[in-house]
């Protein structure tokens, strides 16, 4: 049972790493648009649905 005294600190470190990776992913914009990449598979050209071409020209002045 004493091994748990070692495993608990290890889990704390792993969790800290997991959170750091998640924060990096969010800041890197991985979760910005969860629809478009899925839709993109349905279109042949350029991987971008044509109907959205106007909406991606943001941000505006």
């Amino acid at each position, binding site marked *: 049972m004493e091994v*748990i005294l070692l495993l608990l600190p290890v*889990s704390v470190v792993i969790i800290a790493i997991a*959170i750091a990776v998640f924060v990096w992913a*969010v800041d890197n914009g991985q979760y910005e648009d969860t629809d478009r990449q899925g839709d993109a598979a349905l279109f042949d050209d350029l991987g971008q649905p044509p109907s959205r071409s106007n909406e991606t020209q943001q941000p505006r*002045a």
Partner: protein
Amino acid sequence: MNTVVSGVKPAPVGTRLGLEDERSLVDLVTREASDGHRELTLDVPDMRCASCAARIEQHLSALRGVGRVRINPARQQVLLTYDPVRLTLSAITDAVTDAGYTPVPTTRTNDDPELAAERRTHLKRLGVAGIGMMQVMMFSIALYAGAGQDMTPFYESLMRWVALAFTTPVLLYSAAPFFRNALSSAAGLFRPRGVRLVGLTMDVPVALALAIAYGASVVATVSGGDHVYFDSVTMFTFLLLTARLLEQSTRLKLARYDNWLAMLPAHVDLERNDHPERLPVTAIRPGDRVRVAAGARVPIDGWIIEGASDVDESPLTGETRPLPRGVGDRVFAGTVNTNQALVVEANTNIVDTRMAAIHRLAQRATFDKPPTVQLADSIARYFVLGVITLSLVTYLAWQWFDPGSALAATIAVLVVSCPCALSLATPAAITAAATALRRAGFVATRAHVIERLAKVTHVVFDKTGTLTGGKPELVAVEPVGALSAKACERIAVALEQHTDHPLSQAFAAADAPLVASTVRIHDGRGITGVIDGVAYRLGSAEFCRIARPARHRDHTTIYLAEDSGDRCIPLAEFSIRLWLRDDANATLAAIRRLGISAEILSGDSMAPTAEISVALDDLPYGAGCSPEAKLAHIQALTRKGEAVAMVGDGINDVPGLAAATVSIAPADSTDLAKTTSDAILLGRGLGAIARAIEVARRTRAIVKQNVMWALIYNVAAIPLAAAGLVPPWLAAIGMSASSLGVTLNAMRLTRNEATTWK
């Protein structure tokens, strides 16, 4: 003090955007209202329930110079009018900030960097809460299992300390917005200008529950008490954040259809004084020439001065087929230029486009509160206060029976109750329905439209210009007096130029037009005017005092007569053929399928009305009705208990439209009919009417479901929680699921529409 749920602290809008100085920006976010007032729409992303709405309303109403304030909690928007002389824009946004919320002008888009940052922070909080929750759950399982297998006190204490270590960041980082909101809401109670107790937001019981559960667990960990609730604390935080994230993205999706500016390209290629420039779309002024590439959206209302292309007008009219447009044709902002480049000369600036006008009309409707929403709101306001009182009673009662379970039951009561299900139930459904209707080409301009439309039992159609559409055709001109057919036609053209009655389109403009003076329009009967000193009458047989039967009885006939004071000398008889709208038959069939009766009420004479009636499967009809007769007929129907929808386009329909339960005007109606109507059809056809009734009925069903669900949930869950039968973690699931359930149920309205109609 700012209280964005995800913790971003933007500066107040007024200073951040320099609204005071930037005149063009004030013009963009506000609009001209009556008597010198301006109308302003603000997004308030952290306003979540009726209690928040009440707080904001109180703060805004206290300002000098604020006119009407209307709040839509489902869209998280505030619409108000204010006097620009007495009040500045930043004073208004400051008032919202003082109330503890963050105002943002509605011109922002989904790609707004600030909105993205807010979403990112929210996601991070959610991630920390989720990972923390999983760990704490594992330690809880160890504790539960260990309790049955005589775990030594050392390991039990160790597990509790580790769970405490994982819960603390969740509470301090992830749950921070709940505490901040609750504090600012509670602080409001002690402000001198007195926000009343009903202003408490839903975050108060949430924060209380979290604080009590965490505090009790820490005490139990340190001094070896019976229970720790670390699992409930992390789980509640995680579920609430999840529910709010989903709710927010749902609302953003709804708002996306709404933000007309976001539909337009950000920049346009402009040619001003023969000098090409690339400018923001808001810089377009009347007279500018704008190049519209193939495949791009037309950014402005105007005329084509170069090129020809097919234009998809579906965003404005719901008409799915692209229509050919060439030099001299009008195009509208928001439509899509499908295949050839065009040059368009703007004739308005961006805020006065047809698209902006339609959105404003429709938006107004979502800010009026329908009666059922008002009722739910007033219940929800007292709900939070009731819940806090009840949890206190629960705690004291349990002290009597079993002090050990008192804390768990109190926390469960605080967590399980959800007024948001109650106060969001109706607005969410109405907002979703309005969005679905607008995409089908039906714009409701009043809040009660959807509620009333669901009850409609009888539809009254005007004939000319409503059931019939397109350009009427002048079939024959029969001179019956001294003048030739040609001369009579020229007189008629000169008179008809002064009216926008559908029949006037049968008279094409002449080469050398005559000029009519002292023209008067006699609603629903005809026109009088003077040409070269001779007075003429143009209109129905009765109006021209002609007794003889019409030559072409199947056609609509109007007469021209010389008016010599006491008697009329007949000059000519015009036979006009009207074309039934393409989808008139299908629409009536659909209306009948819904179990609704219909009839024609026309100002035209018997024979042509009968012809239309036969073409429409023997639709009952009334012919030769004056505006007063139409009004009387609708009033009689209403007295008999029918809920009447009147569809009419002309000035002669206006009294009838005003008296009907719901009034609807086709797209090409006269302006007066449009402003009198509760709803406007955007497309060419009538099909949207049947669809609208269908959607309204579904909405009514969904509102009923939502309110019933919210009531049953709260009535069942709160006593169970008070009785100590609901563990805190289950209460957390129940509350989040209840909130989310009503929002998703409302979303079904937009989803079904997309799959079945397109």
